[in-house]
């Protein structure tokens, strides 16, 4: 299980591959589900140029670890990966990746979706968008279900 908060830009797909290879469990999993969230250049009809992600040091790490651990208790999973950016994020950069590995697709799909929705609704991160006309805190996330 890997949970990490990153100040530096990362490529979600390289991170999934790199973690998968480092775990040396090839042959054990038959299903990998992943969600990647990346930065758009628009939100609610506003042109966004960049954004800054704030978090609650200590609590955010603890909360993401709890989400990952609970998923491994609820579903039969081989492994779980959660990475999230903080700091200044520019257009096209990856913000979040959630991935899970299991023997069959049901556990992988369900756990990945559940972890992502929990992260969205309760992990302490806040986005502030910069636009050509100033900056603004994002007030709420769009519903995912």
């Amino acid at each position, binding site marked *: 299980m890997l949970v990490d908060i990153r100040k530096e830009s990362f490529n979600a797909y390289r991170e999934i591959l790199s973690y998968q290879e480092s775990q040396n469990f090839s042959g054990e999993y038959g299903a990998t589900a992943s969600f990647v*969230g990346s930065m758009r250049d628009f939100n609610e009809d506003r042109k966004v140029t960049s954004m800054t*992600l*704030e*978090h*609650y040091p*200590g*609590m955010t790490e*603890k*909360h993401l670890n709890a989400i990952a651990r609970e998923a491994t208790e609820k579903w039969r999973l081989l492994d779980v990966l959660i990475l*999230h950016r903080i700091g200044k994020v520019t257009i096209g950069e990856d*913000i*979040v990746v959630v991935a899970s590995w299991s023997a069959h697709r049901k556990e992988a799909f369900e756990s990945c979706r559940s972890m*992502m929705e929990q*992260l*969205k*609704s*309760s*992990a*302490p*991160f*806040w*986005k*502030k968008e910069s636009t050509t006309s100033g900056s603004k*805190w*994002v*007030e*709420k*996330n769009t519903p995912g279900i």
Partner: protein
Amino acid sequence: MQVSIKYFASLRELIGEASVTIDIEENTTVHDLWMEIIRRKNIEFDNVMMTVNMEYVKSERQLIAGDEVAFFPPVTGG
């Protein structure tokens, strides 16, 4: 007794500080503390989220000395 308070995101900007340690009465709840903060700072803030020692709590949770309380707006990560 003393507790520490942290504010995040738009609430931190509205209040003008990120953290503070204050004295409160015994049996103060998180709700009591929040009411006192918005009264003292003369602010309005909807949908505040509250944690104690980095766990979400109900507003009736009673505080004890040394607690770390945090108030913040709805989370928007991911």
